[in-house]
C-alpha cells in the first residue's frame, strides 16, 4: 500500500502576491548571482593556470561590455545579499557575553565593520 500524503497545490506565482514575498524571493535569488560570479572566478583560476595569454583573454572578457554588465548585475545582488545576510545574523547567532545577550544592533554593526575591513584588505592586496 502506498502512502498518499496530501500536498496542497501552490501556484508558482505565489511570491508575486505580496511585497514581502517578492523581497523574500529577491533575497533568495541573490544566490543565483553569487553562483554565477563564483563560476566566473573558477573560470579565472582555470585561465590563470593555463598561462599568460589565457589569463589576458579572461581579463579582456571581464572588461568587455557584456562582461561588465553581467558583473554589475551580480554586484547589485551580491550587495543585497550582504545587507540581508547581516540583517539576519542576530537571529541566526544570538551572542551572549558574560551572561548578557549582545544587542542585535551591535552584532549587525560588527558585521558591517568586518565588511569594510575585508573590502579594504582586498583592495590593498589587489594593489590599489
Amino acid at each position, binding site marked *: 500500500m502506498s502512502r498518499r500524503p496530501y500536498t496542497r497545490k501552490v501556484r508558482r506565482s505565489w511570491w508575486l502576491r505580496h511585497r514581502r514575498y517578492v523581497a523574500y524571493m529577491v533575497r533568495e535569488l541573490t544566490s543565483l548571482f*553569487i553562483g554565477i560570479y563564483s563560476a566566473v572566478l573558477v573560470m579565472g583560476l582555470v585561465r590563470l593556470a593555463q598561462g599568460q595569454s589565457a589569463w589576458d583573454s579572461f581579463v579582456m572578457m571581464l572588461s568587455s561590455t557584456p562582461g561588465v554588465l553581467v*558583473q554589475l548585475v551580480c554586484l547589485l545582488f551580491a550587495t543585497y545579499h550582504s545587507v540581508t545576510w547581516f540583517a539576519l545574523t542576530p537571529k541566526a547567532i544570538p551572542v551572549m557575553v558574560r551572561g548578557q545577550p549582545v544587542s542585535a544592533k551591535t552584532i549587525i554593526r560588527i558585521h558591517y565593520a568586518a565588511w569594510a575591513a575585508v573590502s579594504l584588505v582586498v583592495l590593498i592586496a589587489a594593489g590599489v
Partner: protein
Amino acid sequence: MARSNKPILWLPFAAGGLVAALITPILIFITGVLVPVGVLHLSHEKVAAFAHNPIGKLILLGVVALPTWHAAHRLRMTAHDLGLSDGVAVKAACYGSAFVLILAAAIALLMI
C-alpha cells in the same frame, strides 16, 4: 536520535553566506569596475604569485568553494519555493554543478 545530514549541508552553507557577504561585492567591484575602467591592472604575474603561495591557494579555494556551495544549497531550496519538487534532478543540478566548479577550482589551483 536519528542522524541527520543537515549540519554537513548547513555549515558550509552558512560559512559560504558569510564569505560571500564579506568578500564577493568587493571582488566584483574590482573585476567588474576598477579593472575595466583601468584603475587597477590584474597582471598574470601578480595573481599567479598569490595563487602560487599555499596560503594564497587556501584563501582562493575558500573564496570560491564556500560561496559556490552556499549558492547551490540556497538555489535548491529556492527551486522548491518556486514549485519544483525537491527531487533527485534539482539536487543533482545544484550540488552537481557546485561539485564540478569546486573540483575545477581545486585542480586549477594545484596546477598553478
